């Protein structure tokens, strides 16, 4: 009888631990330069009002592996995607900015990272970040005025 109670308790505890490990929220952010003196290309997930010339669509993808579950060697986060890949590409295309940006970064549960850290010999935690958008050049004298959504 006592053994049965103990067994049930351990089962319930194991379920509780599994549930607590699987329930979490992962947040990734990227910040953009706001200082106008830096002359950084503008980035928006929306449209702009002013006249512009389209320079084409662009998709940048950074692929890598989380070494030991936590070490991101390549830099497969949104911030690195914007800073290291997207911005240089916009400048290379001679664009003023990018509109209608969409992005996605692989998000990994901490428990998976721990498992990868333990079984580091078998690499399975592949991650990537993808950013898409339309590179534009503003008309002479044009400014970035976002299109306001009517709600």
């Amino acid at each position, binding site marked *: 009888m006592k053994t049965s109670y103990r067994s049930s308790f351990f089962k319930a505890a194991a379920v509780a631990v599994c549930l607590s490990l699987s329930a979490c929220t992962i947040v990734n952010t990227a910040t953009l330069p706001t200082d106008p003196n830096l002359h950084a290309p503008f980035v928006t997930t929306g449209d702009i009002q002013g006249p512009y010339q389209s320079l*084409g669509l662009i998709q940048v993808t950074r692929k890598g592996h989380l070494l030991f579950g936590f070490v991101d060697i390549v830099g497969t986060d949104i911030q690195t995607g914007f800073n290291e890949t997207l911005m240089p590409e916009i400048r290379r295309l001679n664009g003023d900015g990018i509109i209608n940006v969409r992005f996605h970064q692989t998000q990994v549960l901490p428990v998976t990272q721990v498992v990868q850290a333990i079984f580091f010999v078998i690499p399975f935690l592949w991650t990537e970040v993808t950013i898409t958008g339309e590179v534009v050049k503003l008309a002479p004298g044009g400014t970035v005025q976002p299109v306001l959504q009517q709600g």
Partner: protein
Amino acid sequence: MKHAPSPVPLVAPRLTRRCGANQLTLVASLAMALCGSSACTAVVQSGPLSSRPAQGNQVFLSTGAAPRPYQTLGFVQATGFGNQVAGVLDVGDAQIDGTIKGALVNAAIKMGGNGVINIEFLDENPQTPAERAGDLADSLKTNSQGKREVKTRWRSVHAKGEVIRFL
């Protein structure tokens, strides 16, 4: 007549093992160096869409909104499938330009539209220079039966948008 055992067989496995370890280290270092540089970054690009204000009588294409009043005719989604052979040759329709300026525009014209707005697109599996180089190396390498197997990768590009007719 009995020959004295040659020392070579004793040394050779050690040498081979060392060479193997060195090669492995070299490959690992190369992979790290490639990933550390831009080799793990894939950039896919297309030609320009419509500028604003629109010029000419071509079908208006934009990832954003329409520049003037319009009527929505419907929606279109297209996927261009293809293959990449040995990391160097792209076969099929898995290109952004072909999918948007070909498939989306043709669908819009068939629907009686003269524009596609709010275009969204995604290259499902863009290949980084490191992956292309790996595929090429795998394709040139002979297997245990002495045959070469050309490595191919499935490729696909999705695009979708809202088909419109300007008023």
